């Protein structure tokens, strides 16, 4: 059975924390030295309170990170599909695509583009050469 414990106000427990020897004899002197030091400290950016220093540091970091990510890069070349050359190279290496396959792919792509361009041209020529009335008559 547990024993009920009561805090006896008339017979209190003592404070158990102690200090190093001569702590209170030396403290006023240490305090005076610290006060002197803080008085002679020059006022500068580094004397800002940690709170303000942190805010300023955060703004600087955000500006730097923003600059890196959002401004157009002048050093890194990107393809028309928005991928960098390095990214494309990595992709090709990973997927083990051979050079001839690439050549075929681009040739095919070019041919499709050329055909598309030709179609557009033919359409334009047709529109220029033929009068709408003529077309209507033909139809």
């Amino acid at each position, binding site marked *: 059975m*547990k*024993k*009920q*414990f*009561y*805090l006896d106000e008339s017979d*209190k*427990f*003592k*404070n*158990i*924390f*102690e*200090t*190093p*020897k001569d*702590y*209170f004899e030396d*403290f*006023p002197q*240490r*305090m*005076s030295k*610290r*006060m002197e030091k*803080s008085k002679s400290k020059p006022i500068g950016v580094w004397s800002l309170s940690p709170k303000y220093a942190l805010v300023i540091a955060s703004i600087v970091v955000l500006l730097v990170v923003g600059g890196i990510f959002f401004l157009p890069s002048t050093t890194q070349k990107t393809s028309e599909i928005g991928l960098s050359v390095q990214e494309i190279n990595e992709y090709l290496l990973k997927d083990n695509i051979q050079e001839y396959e690439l050549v075929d792919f681009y040739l095919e792509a070019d041919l499709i583009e050329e055909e598309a361009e030709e179609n557009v041209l033919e359409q334009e020529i047709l529109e220029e050469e033929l009068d709408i009335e003529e077309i209507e008559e033909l139809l």
Partner: protein
Amino acid sequence: MTQEQSQAIPKQAIPLRREEKEKKTSNLIGLEDKEIIGRFRNEETRNYAFNLLVRKYQERLYHHIRKMVIDHDDSDDLLQEVFIKAWKGLENFREESQLFTWLYRIASNECLTFLEKKKRKFFLPIYDVKKELSAKLNSYVANKSMHFSGEEIEVKLQKALLNLPDKQRLVFNMKYFDDMTYEEMSSVLGTSVGALKASYHHAVKKIEEQLSHES
């Protein structure tokens, strides 16, 4: 003082002079707060008055802080911060409140801010900071530190206190260990006397329950 002069002083005279000095200092420490504040407001005696203030209150404030943060080095840092804030604010100190309750208020706020920062710094819940403080107590006991003296039950009491919310711990310490009146505590913490009485009563109940459970 030259070596010859030093030799000329009788051996008993040195401890006597030290005693006299200590007596003089303790008399000055006994100065009324009003007198200390008066001297502080005078540019010429400011440093001297502040030194007296430090000597007068350092011990009480140190133990008040130490009971809250447990670690000696942390207590030392916080005590210095308290006196720096006192130096900055003493000139505008309104004598409506007692100097010692004003200093206690600064010290209490420093402790609460310190503990709060500790929690936020390590992104830990309250439990872990208490665990850390409890571990510090254990290390004092295990290493038989000279910064600590206590019997088993007293260590248990300190550990039980760590389970109280920080502000309730302050209330308990001020009432139980520092023998402060509820009115003084109200001036320090800005809480009503009734609320403080209730808080202390609950703290005592919680501690008694925990210590009964452990015994």
